[in-house]
């Protein structure tokens, strides 16, 4: 299943890629593959902007506007004027400790 086309904010800078394969490993949707010892984007429309690739690339070859694709969170963010928050990820819970 794919979501809306041409919306993902994923950017790839091939000149910085050293071909370590980390992005291929962490991407849960197979957006990347390795070709000639470099990563290539196979299908950008499969990107869900989780940010795993960019956060784990030690060479800064990937950039993505990371966030949750959750309507409730985005609507709450619009209403409160703050960060998207659906309240389902423990943001509103008090810490168990200290």
């Amino acid at each position: 299943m794919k979501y809306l086309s041409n919306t993902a904010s994923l950017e790839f800078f091939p000149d910085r890629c050293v071909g370590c394969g980390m992005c291929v490993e962490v991407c849960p949707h197979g957006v990347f593959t390795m070709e000639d010892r470099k990563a290539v984007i196979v299908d950008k429309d499969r990107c869900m902007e989780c940010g795993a690739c960019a956060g784990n690339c030690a060479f800064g070859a990937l950039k993505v506007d990371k966030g949750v694709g959750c309507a409730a969170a985005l609507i709450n963010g619009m209403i409160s004027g703050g960060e998207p928050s659906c309240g389902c990820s423990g943001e509103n819970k008090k810490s168990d400790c200290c």
Partner: protein
Amino acid sequence: MAELKFIKVGAQEREPACCGPVQSAQQSHAREEEWPAWVTGTLMTDAGVIPVISTDLTASDHWEHLKCRTSSFRNDYSVAPGLYAVGTPDRNTDVFVSANYKLSFDALRKALKGLSAWVLVLDTKGINVWCAAGKGTFGTEELVRRISFAKLDRIVDHRKIIVPQLGAPGISAPGVKKVSGFKVCYGPVRAEDVGAYIAAGYEATLEMRRVKFSFVDRLVLTPMEINPAMKKYYPAYALIMLAIFGLQPTGIFFRDAFSGGLPFLLLGLTAILAGALVTPVLLPFIPFRSFAVKGWITGVLAVFLCMNFIPMAGRVNSVLLFFTYLFFPLASSYVALQFTGSTTFTGMSGVRKELKITIPLYISGSVVSLILLLVYKLGEWRFI
């Protein structure tokens, strides 16, 4: 190499819970008798006493899992963060990282049956790995802190930790290595594949690295789509509809409220089920990629079926018919759009784009719906 042996320790031998310089799993439990049923013993290590956990899930665990899937029980279903042991681990044994949502933790301990392992549980505020990683609570900072709290460098000789692949959005492997010295290896997406991953020499197949979203995956999520929608919108909606149909120039009549309102209460229920159950379950088969459009299509079909099968007590004039086909598909669309938060493949930019287009439509649709109800009412009272 220090020898590890099973011992039973008294409460006084443990350090105080919380806020001390060292915090690990066992310290969150003040007394041994308070330990959860799945702790089967303890293990003495250079870094203190570590609880040993069972890899068998009990009937009570399964019952709790069912409650998690259907109610707000899931909001407070956590285990104490820290280090746990499975089997008889030693200084060369693998370290697996998990979240402190008990459903995630249980999936891992079940998958480790027959193996020896260390399990490092992060404090994700009782949230699963992927969602917590998205929010950063399953993150580099927390992982590094837990490695330090558990004194992992004194427990194992190697410097490798196996993190579930879906933890990657919150973790920077280079960052963890830099600060803690531990190399992050990403394990498979699903805990159930851990055994096969180890057997394959710590290699995950392409299959193990992909997130799926099967019929069953979608179905188990629907109770927690229906439940909040019913609680959040339905009571207010039902009251409004009953009031509208019961209100007469001479007062409120319950008979009119029910005879006129009942079909619309059923239509409201249908719209919620169309958006929160039918759309998620049939997701790949409903045309178009937009969730709002998918929900609208399902809503129109559901309303059409209802209108032909629910006796409308002769009250459907053209104004109410217009209202019905305007309001309920929009409601279904709105509810279906909420499912984006539960899927495995929708991104923020896409959802933002959908909202930008649909929110004005939902608002104007609701306003027009209210006006139509008003027109119907004025007509009924012969004012127009």
